[in-house]
């Protein structure tokens, strides 16, 4: 692999011009969903459709994590029967989906956002309150 820079290096070298916060969308209740409205500050940096697609995919992934289906019920019943000790050795469905989300965000950052001087922060690092988009100074 050629020289790789971590995103952290980028943050240290490039200056942060602004941060945009995509808030939660509570219209469907307490499930984790983010607003798909395109923030005006990103108009010059990225395509609206691209951004909305990213947020919509994230919303779908979070919905999958919190879905009430047979898998979650089986997991819940099994956990109850083992007095919840099963979670010591097994990862919950939610945690598996969170890993998927982290991978997706990294991929999006690599392919789409970093080349445009933007950085998406995984919402789990902000307590699932916001998607933080850091806008780096455009020095080109």
């Amino acid at each position, binding site marked *: 692999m050629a020289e*790789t820079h971590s995103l952290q*290096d980028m943050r240290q*070298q490039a200056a942060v011009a602004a941060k945009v916060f995509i808030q939660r969308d509570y219209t469907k*209740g307490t499930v984790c969903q983010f607003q798909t409205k395109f923030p005006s500050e990103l108009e010059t940096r990225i395509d609206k459709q691209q951004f909305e697609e990213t947020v919509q995919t994230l919303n779908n992934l979070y919905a999958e994590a919190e879905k009430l289906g047979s898998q*979650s019920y089986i997991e*819940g019943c099994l956990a109850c029967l083992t007095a919840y000790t099963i979670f010591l050795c097994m990862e919950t469905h*939610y945690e598996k989906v969170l890993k998927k989300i982290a991978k997706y965000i990294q991929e999006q950052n690599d392919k789409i956002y970093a080349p445009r001087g933007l950085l998406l922060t995984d919402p789990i690092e902000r307590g*699932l309150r916001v998607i933080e988009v850091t806008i780096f100074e455009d*020095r080109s």
Partner: protein
Amino acid sequence: MHLGVSESMRECEYSQISTRSSTPMETPYKKRTPKMRKWESFPGRNKFYCNGRIMMAKQTGVFYLTLVLILVTCGLFFTFDCPFLALQLTPVIPVIGGVLFLFVLGTLLRTSFSDPGVLPRATPDEAADLERQIDVANGSTGYRPPPRTKEVVINGQTVKLKYCFTCKIFRPPRASHCSLCDNCVERFDHHCPWVGNCVGRRNYRFFYMFILSLSFLTIFIFAFVITHVIIRSHRSGFLNALKDSPARYPFTEISLCRLVGLSGFHTYLISSNQTTNEDIKGSWSSKRGKDNYNPYSHGNIFTNCCAALCGPLPPSLIDRRGFIQSDTPQLAPPTNGITMYGATQSQQSHMCDQDQCIQSTKFVLQAAATPLLQQQSSQPVILTASPENGGSLPGRASLTLGGPCTSLPLGQPTPPTSTPSLSCHEATDMLPIHGHSHTHNHSHPLQEPVAHHHFLTPEEVPSPPGMLPCGSPLGHSHTMQAGFYNPASQDSLHEDSVRGLVKLSSV
């Protein structure tokens, strides 16, 4: 050089920033200082053990009492009654007892030690951004600060989201701020001193399993102790039987009805998908209006129960065992096009002062308005002039001021108390209420005569602010926000718990 940086941004591969890994750019000085874990600088009033694995509330005395009571009762049962019963009836009895006991202990520890669903506080950038949005939306005009509520329509019902001054976030629906733990908790049910923790989204099912299994265990012990006495009395007469196996379990009999009632109450809450908090306030009661319904309910009892007990368990949002990263990106000077970041920084420090000013104003207003608050309805008014809910609370709400864990058999009418307002944490309000509800409790045999819980009407309470002399005029009420933090009230509530327990021991 700048061009090179932007080119490198485009060409090189990047790895995801992990807050768990150490930065390669650490200076030698930083490398020498030991890394702190996030729990060590947690802003809430929680206690952590086992290097952040265990999380409890600050006051854990009553939790240890719960443990001791369970261990002593079960210990006595297994020592004195089980050998006799195993021989006379069947050895399955101690086995079932043992399994129940282990399940009770497991669920109790799980409830007490886990994160109830604490929402981490907003980062300074987020808080500044929110403040800016609020100002823009409402236009700061003169002295009157903007209202800090947001309305959202959920499944056809309008729900007000309140701004938490301590955590600097708009609380998600069903979340509330626990004044004892000083945290916002998702799907806040209540703060339970018996388990030494809040009961919220992440540990509600463990709490429910705990009270349900403890009810079964209590019934089990009670039934077999009586069986023991009966068998002995058949052999050697009733009086001799009582002499041989004295009443060792006064607490079992007392707590039995209370536990069964509490389990029944929470079964009702689960089947209707409500929290204790919502039930007490009557948020979704049809008494409020014909069109008032619970937007979170899944429609039928079975789905509600499955969702509450077997639904997916969200992970902890506070990452207590992660390492703190000193992450300070360089600030760009404000340019023509983008002035947001620089502006928000200065605005943020201004906001902090304004915040403290607002809070100290509230304290003064609280002191002046305490008699008024007693007449108002429960919902605290945050930054608006009129109360959010018209009318007084339903009578049931006032009983449960004594604590949601008091037994509340379904359908039983609750005795009214004099003070309808639930959201006041002031000591002066709470003490007379407790006295009142105690007398009521004694008159109802099914009511629990033990200490109420310090039930938290989990209204937002700001953490003790610096009391800055405030220049803004007091006449503007942005506040009749009840639920101010008062250290005296917290201590007196603790005293109440102890007083209640002393009463218990005298029964």
